[in-house]
């Protein structure tokens, strides 16, 4: 036995019998009627429609579901025969958002944190820290600042931190949903290496099945109505057949399948709306420039996709083209077709003039919610533009984005997909000629994705110019148009 194997803890056996959980204050159970046995060392991909309770199951396994006010449990859920809350450190959970998992300022301390909490002796902690960083392939000094890491590196750091507990069960809750394609592979490969060394049991939840299908040896599909819908090897569960169709219908990205949104759009070539020349963009007034000497023309009835690695300055470029951030140098000019009665310099527009011409949809929909109901949210823009707005367009937009039944609801209480639809709808309410979207498909299930792509294609058809910052190759292909690739401080235009 090598030293590495000697220190590997035993893989955990998971057992669920009629298990269910209801959050305090909710009527419906988040998960219910779960009967499941996962053998030690098994690698399981957990699937299901939005709201089927995948994250609840992971929280339960991680021992994070409390009692009393927090909620009510039924049945039993056991790790090696023990309640998960009593098996502290046996299960390690990595969450979706890389930003909100980092606790400490230095890489070494961050990895040590979990081991400290389990009262591991000091010398042993630093041994584990070194090994965990090796396992996830983070070759960095221990005092490297955690703020200087990329998204993929942060997720590998979160994985290393969990590994320092030497868990027998690894739980991953959409660990790659917020990452660019490179980051996704980084994290996936790190997980594979870790499993090969430790032999731990794995349960991973992820919409994008193709990433994990080759890694896992079992796929479990949760039924939204409770219990298990399908259970078996990936080849069987994901093969052509009723289960695969039901998964696709539930918005799961099954490999080799993509929502049908219609054929290629005719090449865009409407009138010029906005032209940039020699544009140097920067996020802050004094900070470094993100992209220099950008020259580009935004035309009506077409798509433009901005791609490039994380942190290259894509969003900064898009926000500048959207006249929200002032450029460091260069010119941004609105054509007469876009400006109309307003000034030719978009940075001179009042905000009510801006919303009629350019709509920018941010990555986090909640950042743009301003009122207490969906209806007010939709009417907000038009009311900014005129005292007596024509609300027929609002009704149209609500209908088109299937928000009519939600007009009285509070925007913050909507589901993820509904929030995304509302944030697009609020921008469309003032009929802008240009629509800018920042990472519109990040973490979206296939249903929301198809809905969004269909809508954007219709908008392009109606003469709107759609400009998106995105990593999603399928999305770019579905919208067509030109691509602006940004990296190393420069932009390169690719037309097809």
């Amino acid at each position, binding site marked *: 036995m090598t030293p590495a194997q000697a220190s590997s803890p035993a893989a955990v056996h998971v057992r669920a019998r009629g298990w269910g959980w209801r959050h305090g204050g909710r009527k419906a159970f988040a998960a219910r009627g779960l009967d499941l046995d996962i053998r030690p060392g098994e690698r399981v991909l957990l699937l299901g429609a939005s709201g089927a309770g995948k994250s609840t199951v992971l929280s339960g396994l991680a021992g994070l579901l409390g009692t009393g006010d927090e909620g009510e449990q039924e049945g039993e859920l056991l790790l090696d025969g023990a309640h998960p809350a009593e098996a502290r450190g046996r299960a390690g959970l990595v969450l979706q958002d890389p930003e909100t998992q980092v606790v400490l300022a230095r890489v070494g301390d961050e990895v040590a944190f979990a081991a400290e909490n389990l009262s591991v002796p000091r010398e042993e902690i*630093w041994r584990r820290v070194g090994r965990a960083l090796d396992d996830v392939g983070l070759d960095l000094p221990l005092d490297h600042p955690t703020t200087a890491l990329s998204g993929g590196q942060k997720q590998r750091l979160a994985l290393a931190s969990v590994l320092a507990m030497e868990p027998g069960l690894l739980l991953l809750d959409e660990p790659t949903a917020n990452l660019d394609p490179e980051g996704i592979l980084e994290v996936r490969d790190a997980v594979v290496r870790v499993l090969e060394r430790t032999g731990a049991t794995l349960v991973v939840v992820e919409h994008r099945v193709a990433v994990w299908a080759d890694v896992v040896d079992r796929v479990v599909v949760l039924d939204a109505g409770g219990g298990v819908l399908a259970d078996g090897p990936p080849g069987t569960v994901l093969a052509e057949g009723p289960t695969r169709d039901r998964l696709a219908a539930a918005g799961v990205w099954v490999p080799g399948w993509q929502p049908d949104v219609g054929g290629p759009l005719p090449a865009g070539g409407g009138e010029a709306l906005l032209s940039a020349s020699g544009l140097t963009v920067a996020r802050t007034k004094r900070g470094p420039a993100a992209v220099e000497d950008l020259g580009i023309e935004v035309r009506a009835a077409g798509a433009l996709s901005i791609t490039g690695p994380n942190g290259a300055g894509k969003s900064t470029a898009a926000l500048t083209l959207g006249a929200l951030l002032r450029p460091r140098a260069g010119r941004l000019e609105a054509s007469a077709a876009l400006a109309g009665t307003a000034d030719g310099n978009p940075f001179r527009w009042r*905000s009510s003039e801006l*919303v009629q011409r350019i709509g*920018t949809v*941010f990555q986090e929909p909640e950042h743009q919610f301003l009122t207490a109901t969906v209806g007010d949210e939709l009417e907000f*823009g038009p009311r900014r533009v005129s005292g007596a707005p024509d609300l027929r367009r609002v009704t149209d937009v609500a209908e088109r984005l299937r928000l009519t039944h939600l007009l009285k609801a509070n925007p913050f209480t909507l589901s993820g997909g509904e929030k995304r639809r509302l944030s697009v709808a*609020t921008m469309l309410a003032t009929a802008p000629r240009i629509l800018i979207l920042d990472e519109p498909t990040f973490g979206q299930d296939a249903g929301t994705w198809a809905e969004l792509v269909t809508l954007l294609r219709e908008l392009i058809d109606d003469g709107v110019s759609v400009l998106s910052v995105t990593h999603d190759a399928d999305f770019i292909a579905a919208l067509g148009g030109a691509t602006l690739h940004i990296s190393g401080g420069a932009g390169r235009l690719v037309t097809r």
Partner: protein
Amino acid sequence: MSTDHLTPVLTGKTLLRANPVSKLFAAVVITLALMASIDWVSAAVVLACELVLMPLLGISAVGLARRIWPLLVAAAIGAYGTALLAEKTGRVLLDVGPLLFTEGSVAAGIAVGLRGLALALPGIFLLLTTDPTDLADALAQKLRLPHRFVLGALASLRLVGLLVEEWESLGLARHARGIGSDGSIVARTRNLLGQSFGLIVQAIRRATRLATAMEARGFGGGTRTWARESTLAPLDAAVAAVGLLIAGGAVTAAVLAGTWNFILS
């Protein structure tokens, strides 16, 4: 104030190796001595010592001025106000219309201004020369403060930086909705309130997620070990002694100069 003004500079060599607890002790002793009396001699002695210590701590005068200029302004205003309003004793120095300054009132003003600065600097020096993680280690291991509280505070400190970014992108996101800087004062105030509310919502959301991530890594148990040992060395005795020396020196000088003015007498 942006976040980089809150980040330690950590360029000083000697005192960086001192345990944060000894630095904290020195700062507290000096502060207590200053609080005991309102007079210009003790404040001037402490302030002079603090300025002399700056090179040793690796703090540059320009860098410090950039970080604490609001304090300098506040101290100047405090001094002026006191000189104007304090009891008018001694010779008249200036009498122009409603402005009347006397020796007594000017001395009181100078004392208040110097004291404000001298009081603020020890805490600022501590924060500027101390790594927050080391401070948390020392507070929990040496002063036996509850580790849940100390680590919770440390983690939330990191969120402050994220919230500054969040505030900026909230502003842009709201501008894109048609809320701009082109409204009346009432509209701007309402916008500011709305943006603040948005920030609070995001802060709670992030804090909740961070708490979950910490709990998922075993945080919250009754006991824990510490990967970094917080140690005390001879240097720490020296740091504490310097603190006592400055405090004692200030009190002695004030008593000898006859300016000692105990707040409780």
